[in-house]
Protein backbone atom coordinates (compact mmCIF):
# COMPACT_ATOMS: atom_id res chain seq x y z
CA UNK A 1 0.00 0.00 0.00
CA UNK A 2 1.38 3.40 -0.90
CA UNK A 3 2.17 5.90 1.84
CA UNK A 4 -0.86 8.12 1.22
CA UNK A 5 -3.26 5.21 1.56
CA UNK A 6 -1.53 4.05 4.74
CA UNK A 7 -2.08 7.52 6.22
CA UNK A 8 -5.70 7.39 5.11
CA UNK A 9 -6.04 4.05 6.88
CA UNK A 10 -4.55 5.50 10.08
CA UNK A 11 -7.09 8.33 9.92
CA UNK A 12 -9.95 5.88 9.41
CA UNK A 13 -8.90 3.75 12.39
CA UNK A 14 -8.52 6.82 14.64
CA UNK A 15 -11.93 8.19 13.76
CA UNK A 16 -13.86 4.95 14.17
CA UNK A 17 -12.10 3.93 17.38
CA UNK A 18 -12.23 7.30 19.15
CA UNK A 19 -15.58 8.65 18.03
CA UNK A 20 -17.66 5.57 17.19
CA UNK A 21 -16.01 3.01 19.47
CA UNK A 22 -15.76 0.38 16.73
CA UNK A 23 -12.65 -1.52 15.68
CA UNK A 24 -12.24 -2.19 11.99
CA UNK A 25 -10.58 -5.13 10.29
CA UNK A 26 -9.31 -4.77 6.73
CA UNK A 27 -11.13 -7.01 4.28
CA UNK A 28 -11.29 -7.34 0.51
CA UNK A 29 -13.77 -5.64 -1.80
CA UNK A 30 -14.99 -9.14 -2.66
CA UNK A 31 -16.57 -9.26 0.80
CA UNK A 32 -19.20 -6.65 -0.14
CA UNK A 33 -22.62 -8.36 0.15
CA UNK A 34 -24.70 -6.48 -2.43
CA UNK A 35 -24.85 -2.73 -2.81
CA UNK A 36 -23.70 -0.36 -0.08
CA UNK A 37 -26.56 1.41 1.70
CA UNK A 38 -25.28 4.96 1.98
CA UNK A 39 -22.50 7.12 0.60
CA UNK A 40 -20.94 10.20 2.18
CA UNK A 41 -18.69 12.55 0.22
CA UNK A 42 -16.36 15.39 1.12
CA UNK A 43 -14.04 17.34 -1.16
CA UNK A 44 -11.00 19.39 -0.24
CA UNK A 45 -8.94 22.00 -2.01
CA UNK A 46 -5.59 23.57 -1.23
CA UNK A 47 -2.00 22.75 -2.20
CA UNK A 48 -3.56 19.48 -3.38
CA UNK A 49 -7.15 18.63 -4.08
CA UNK A 50 -9.28 15.56 -3.90
CA UNK A 51 -12.37 13.82 -2.71
CA UNK A 52 -13.04 11.17 -0.11
CA UNK A 53 -16.05 8.89 -0.48
CA UNK A 54 -17.22 6.51 2.20
CA UNK A 55 -19.67 3.70 1.47
CA UNK A 56 -21.49 2.21 4.45
CA UNK A 57 -23.58 -0.87 5.10
CA UNK A 58 -26.86 -0.19 6.93
CA UNK A 59 -26.04 -2.39 9.96
CA UNK A 60 -22.70 -0.66 10.37
CA UNK A 61 -24.22 2.83 10.21
CA UNK A 62 -26.78 1.73 12.78
CA UNK A 63 -23.98 0.53 15.04
CA UNK A 64 -22.13 3.84 14.60
CA UNK A 65 -25.26 5.79 15.54
CA UNK A 66 -25.95 3.55 18.54
CA UNK A 67 -22.44 4.06 19.85
CA UNK A 68 -22.07 7.75 19.13
CA UNK A 69 -25.53 8.83 20.25
CA UNK A 70 -25.92 6.29 23.07
CA UNK A 71 -29.26 5.04 21.79
CA UNK A 72 -30.73 1.57 21.43
CA UNK A 73 -30.86 -0.20 18.07
CA UNK A 74 -34.63 0.41 17.75
CA UNK A 75 -34.20 4.12 18.30
CA UNK A 76 -31.82 4.68 15.39
CA UNK A 77 -33.36 6.72 12.57
CA UNK A 78 -32.24 7.37 8.99
CA UNK A 79 -31.47 10.95 10.01
CA UNK A 80 -29.06 9.67 12.67
CA UNK A 81 -27.42 7.30 10.19
CA UNK A 82 -26.92 10.11 7.68
CA UNK A 83 -25.54 12.46 10.28
CA UNK A 84 -23.04 9.84 11.47
CA UNK A 85 -21.98 9.12 7.89
CA UNK A 86 -21.39 12.82 7.19
CA UNK A 87 -19.51 13.38 10.41
CA UNK A 88 -17.36 10.29 9.87
CA UNK A 89 -16.20 11.37 6.42
CA UNK A 90 -15.65 14.92 7.68
CA UNK A 91 -13.38 13.72 10.48
CA UNK A 92 -11.55 11.22 8.28
CA UNK A 93 -10.80 13.96 5.74
CA UNK A 94 -9.63 16.57 8.26
CA UNK A 95 -7.51 14.08 10.15
CA UNK A 96 -6.05 12.66 6.94
CA UNK A 97 -5.00 16.10 5.66
CA UNK A 98 -3.42 17.05 8.98
CA UNK A 99 -1.32 13.88 8.79
CA UNK A 100 -0.50 13.77 5.09
CA UNK A 101 0.31 17.45 4.64
CA UNK A 102 0.76 19.03 8.09
CA UNK A 103 0.98 22.79 8.34
CA UNK A 104 -0.78 23.46 5.04
CA UNK A 105 -4.23 24.95 4.76
CA UNK A 106 -7.10 23.20 3.02
CA UNK A 107 -10.70 24.18 2.46
CA UNK A 108 -13.16 21.37 3.10
CA UNK A 109 -16.66 21.26 1.66
CA UNK A 110 -19.65 20.54 3.88
CA UNK A 111 -20.07 16.73 3.64
CA UNK A 112 -22.93 15.37 1.57
CA UNK A 113 -24.73 12.11 2.12
CA UNK A 114 -27.31 10.02 0.29
CA UNK A 115 -28.17 6.58 -0.99
CA UNK A 116 -25.19 4.85 -2.56
CA UNK A 117 -26.05 4.93 -6.26
CA UNK A 118 -22.59 3.79 -7.31
CA UNK A 119 -19.84 1.73 -5.78
CA UNK A 120 -16.28 2.67 -4.97
CA UNK A 121 -13.73 2.17 -7.69
CA UNK A 122 -11.55 -0.85 -7.17
CA UNK A 123 -8.31 1.09 -6.96
CA UNK A 124 -7.48 3.51 -4.14
CA UNK A 125 -10.13 1.92 -1.99
CA UNK A 126 -9.97 0.46 1.50
CA UNK A 127 -12.57 -2.06 2.71
CA UNK A 128 -13.24 -2.99 6.31
CA UNK A 129 -15.23 -5.47 8.32
CA UNK A 130 -16.40 -4.78 11.87
CA UNK A 131 -18.11 -6.47 14.78
CA UNK A 132 -19.28 -9.67 13.06
CA UNK A 133 -20.10 -7.81 9.85
CA UNK A 134 -18.16 -9.33 6.94
CA UNK A 135 -18.21 -5.92 5.24
CA UNK A 136 -18.94 -2.63 6.98
CA UNK A 137 -17.43 0.30 5.15
CA UNK A 138 -15.26 1.24 2.16
CA UNK A 139 -13.33 4.49 1.81
CA UNK A 140 -11.96 5.71 -1.51
CA UNK A 141 -9.63 8.58 -2.34
CA UNK A 142 -9.31 10.51 -5.60
CA UNK A 143 -7.62 13.68 -6.83
CA UNK A 144 -4.08 15.00 -6.92
CA UNK A 145 -3.50 14.04 -3.28
CA UNK A 146 -3.77 10.36 -4.22
CA UNK A 147 -0.17 10.02 -5.26
CA UNK A 148 1.33 12.51 -2.82
CA UNK A 149 4.50 11.14 -1.28
CA UNK A 150 6.19 14.40 -0.26
CA UNK A 151 5.59 15.19 3.43
CA UNK A 152 7.43 13.26 6.11
Amino acid sequence: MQRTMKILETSIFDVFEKMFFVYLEPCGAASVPGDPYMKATIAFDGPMNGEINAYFSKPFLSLMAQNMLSVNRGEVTDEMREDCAREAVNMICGHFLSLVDPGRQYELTVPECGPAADTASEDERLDYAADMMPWAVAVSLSGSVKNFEGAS
Partner: protein
Amino acid sequence: MSFNVLIVDDSMSMRSVIRRVVEMSGYKVDNCYEASNGLEALSILEDKWVDLVISDINMPEMDGMELVSRMRKDDVLRMIPVVIVTTEGNEERVREAFELGARGYLKKPFLPEECRRMFLQVIGVQEDGEYAEDDEDSGDLDF
Protein backbone atom coordinates in the same frame (compact mmCIF):
# COMPACT_ATOMS: atom_id res chain seq x y z
CA MET B 1 -21.30 26.84 40.78
CA SER B 2 -23.23 25.84 37.69
CA PHE B 3 -22.77 26.57 34.04
CA ASN B 4 -24.71 27.31 30.89
CA VAL B 5 -23.07 25.93 27.77
CA LEU B 6 -23.78 26.48 24.06
CA ILE B 7 -22.69 23.75 21.63
CA VAL B 8 -22.48 24.79 17.96
CA ASP B 9 -22.07 22.06 15.36
CA ASP B 10 -23.99 21.13 12.22
CA SER B 11 -23.77 17.47 13.23
CA MET B 12 -26.36 16.40 15.80
CA SER B 13 -24.18 13.38 16.54
CA MET B 14 -21.25 15.58 17.47
CA ARG B 15 -23.48 17.87 19.53
CA SER B 16 -24.73 14.81 21.36
CA VAL B 17 -21.19 13.57 22.11
CA ILE B 18 -20.06 16.97 23.38
CA ARG B 19 -23.24 17.40 25.44
CA ARG B 20 -22.63 14.08 27.19
CA VAL B 21 -19.01 14.99 27.92
CA VAL B 22 -20.10 18.37 29.33
CA GLU B 23 -22.84 16.78 31.44
CA MET B 24 -20.43 14.16 32.77
CA SER B 25 -17.70 16.67 33.54
CA GLY B 26 -18.56 16.55 37.23
CA TYR B 27 -19.83 20.11 37.32
CA LYS B 28 -23.43 21.19 37.35
CA VAL B 29 -24.69 22.25 33.94
CA ASP B 30 -27.93 24.20 34.21
CA ASN B 31 -28.59 24.62 30.52
CA CYS B 32 -26.91 23.06 27.53
CA TYR B 33 -28.11 24.90 24.43
CA GLU B 34 -27.49 23.64 20.90
CA ALA B 35 -27.15 25.41 17.55
CA SER B 36 -26.36 23.97 14.13
CA ASN B 37 -24.46 27.00 12.79
CA GLY B 38 -23.08 30.39 13.79
CA LEU B 39 -26.26 32.30 12.95
CA GLU B 40 -28.38 30.10 15.20
CA ALA B 41 -25.74 30.46 17.91
CA LEU B 42 -25.85 34.27 17.75
CA SER B 43 -29.64 34.14 17.95
CA ILE B 44 -29.42 32.07 21.15
CA LEU B 45 -26.75 34.38 22.56
CA GLU B 46 -29.07 37.37 22.10
CA ASP B 47 -31.49 35.87 24.64
CA LYS B 48 -29.49 33.57 26.90
CA TRP B 49 -26.40 33.99 28.98
CA VAL B 50 -23.89 31.20 28.53
CA ASP B 51 -20.58 30.63 30.30
CA LEU B 52 -18.92 28.70 27.51
CA VAL B 53 -19.34 28.26 23.75
CA ILE B 54 -18.03 25.09 22.12
CA SER B 55 -18.05 25.48 18.34
CA ASP B 56 -17.16 23.60 15.19
CA ILE B 57 -15.49 25.59 12.35
CA ASN B 58 -16.80 24.05 9.13
CA MET B 59 -20.56 24.72 9.14
CA PRO B 60 -23.11 26.00 6.59
CA GLU B 61 -24.75 29.45 6.90
CA MET B 62 -22.12 30.87 9.26
CA ASP B 63 -18.92 29.06 10.17
CA GLY B 64 -17.19 28.99 13.54
CA MET B 65 -14.54 31.55 12.60
CA GLU B 66 -17.20 34.12 11.70
CA LEU B 67 -19.07 33.32 14.92
CA VAL B 68 -15.96 33.96 17.04
CA SER B 69 -15.24 37.14 15.10
CA ARG B 70 -18.80 38.47 15.61
CA MET B 71 -18.67 37.62 19.31
CA ARG B 72 -15.41 39.54 19.74
CA LYS B 73 -16.99 42.65 18.24
CA ASP B 74 -19.75 42.61 20.86
CA ASP B 75 -18.95 44.19 24.24
CA VAL B 76 -20.87 41.52 26.17
CA LEU B 77 -20.35 38.41 24.06
CA ARG B 78 -16.59 38.96 23.91
CA MET B 79 -16.38 37.92 27.57
CA ILE B 80 -17.64 34.40 26.83
CA PRO B 81 -14.82 31.89 26.27
CA VAL B 82 -15.03 29.90 23.05
CA VAL B 83 -13.51 26.48 22.43
CA ILE B 84 -13.08 25.52 18.80
CA VAL B 85 -13.71 21.83 18.08
CA THR B 86 -12.80 20.93 14.53
CA THR B 87 -11.32 18.36 12.21
CA GLU B 88 -8.84 20.92 10.98
CA GLY B 89 -5.39 20.41 12.43
CA ASN B 90 -3.79 23.19 10.42
CA GLU B 91 -1.72 25.44 12.69
CA GLU B 92 -2.39 28.56 10.65
CA ARG B 93 -6.13 28.01 10.93
CA VAL B 94 -5.84 27.41 14.68
CA ARG B 95 -3.71 30.53 15.10
CA GLU B 96 -6.33 32.49 13.17
CA ALA B 97 -9.04 31.19 15.52
CA PHE B 98 -7.00 32.27 18.56
CA GLU B 99 -6.32 35.68 17.05
CA LEU B 100 -10.04 36.12 16.56
CA GLY B 101 -10.55 35.34 20.25
CA ALA B 102 -10.97 31.58 20.74
CA ARG B 103 -9.67 30.41 24.12
CA GLY B 104 -9.23 26.70 23.43
CA TYR B 105 -8.91 24.24 20.61
CA LEU B 106 -9.78 20.57 20.35
CA LYS B 107 -9.10 18.48 17.28
CA LYS B 108 -11.51 15.77 16.15
CA PRO B 109 -11.32 12.86 16.56
CA PHE B 110 -10.90 13.25 20.32
CA LEU B 111 -11.28 11.05 23.35
CA PRO B 112 -14.07 12.09 25.76
CA GLU B 113 -11.46 12.76 28.45
CA GLU B 114 -9.61 15.20 26.17
CA CYS B 115 -12.84 17.11 25.59
CA ARG B 116 -13.65 17.17 29.32
CA ARG B 117 -10.15 18.42 30.19
CA MET B 118 -10.38 21.24 27.65
CA PHE B 119 -13.82 22.24 28.90
CA LEU B 120 -12.62 22.46 32.49
CA GLN B 121 -9.37 24.20 31.54
CA VAL B 122 -11.11 26.96 29.63
CA ILE B 123 -13.71 27.69 32.29
CA GLY B 124 -10.88 27.76 34.82
CA VAL B 125 -11.64 24.65 36.87
CA GLN B 126 -8.75 22.41 37.84
CA GLU B 127 -8.95 18.63 38.03
CA ASP B 128 -9.34 18.82 41.83
CA GLY B 129 -12.40 21.02 41.46
CA GLU B 130 -10.64 24.21 42.54
CA TYR B 131 -10.74 27.28 40.32
CA ALA B 132 -7.46 28.02 38.62
CA GLU B 133 -5.50 31.20 39.35
CA ASP B 134 -6.64 33.97 37.07
CA ASP B 135 -4.57 33.45 33.97
CA GLU B 136 -5.64 35.01 30.74
CA ASP B 137 -3.71 32.42 28.75
CA SER B 138 -5.54 29.54 30.45
CA GLY B 139 -6.70 27.06 27.88
CA ASP B 140 -4.74 28.57 25.05
CA LEU B 141 -2.25 26.67 22.97
CA ASP B 142 1.32 27.86 22.86
CA PHE B 143 2.82 28.65 19.51
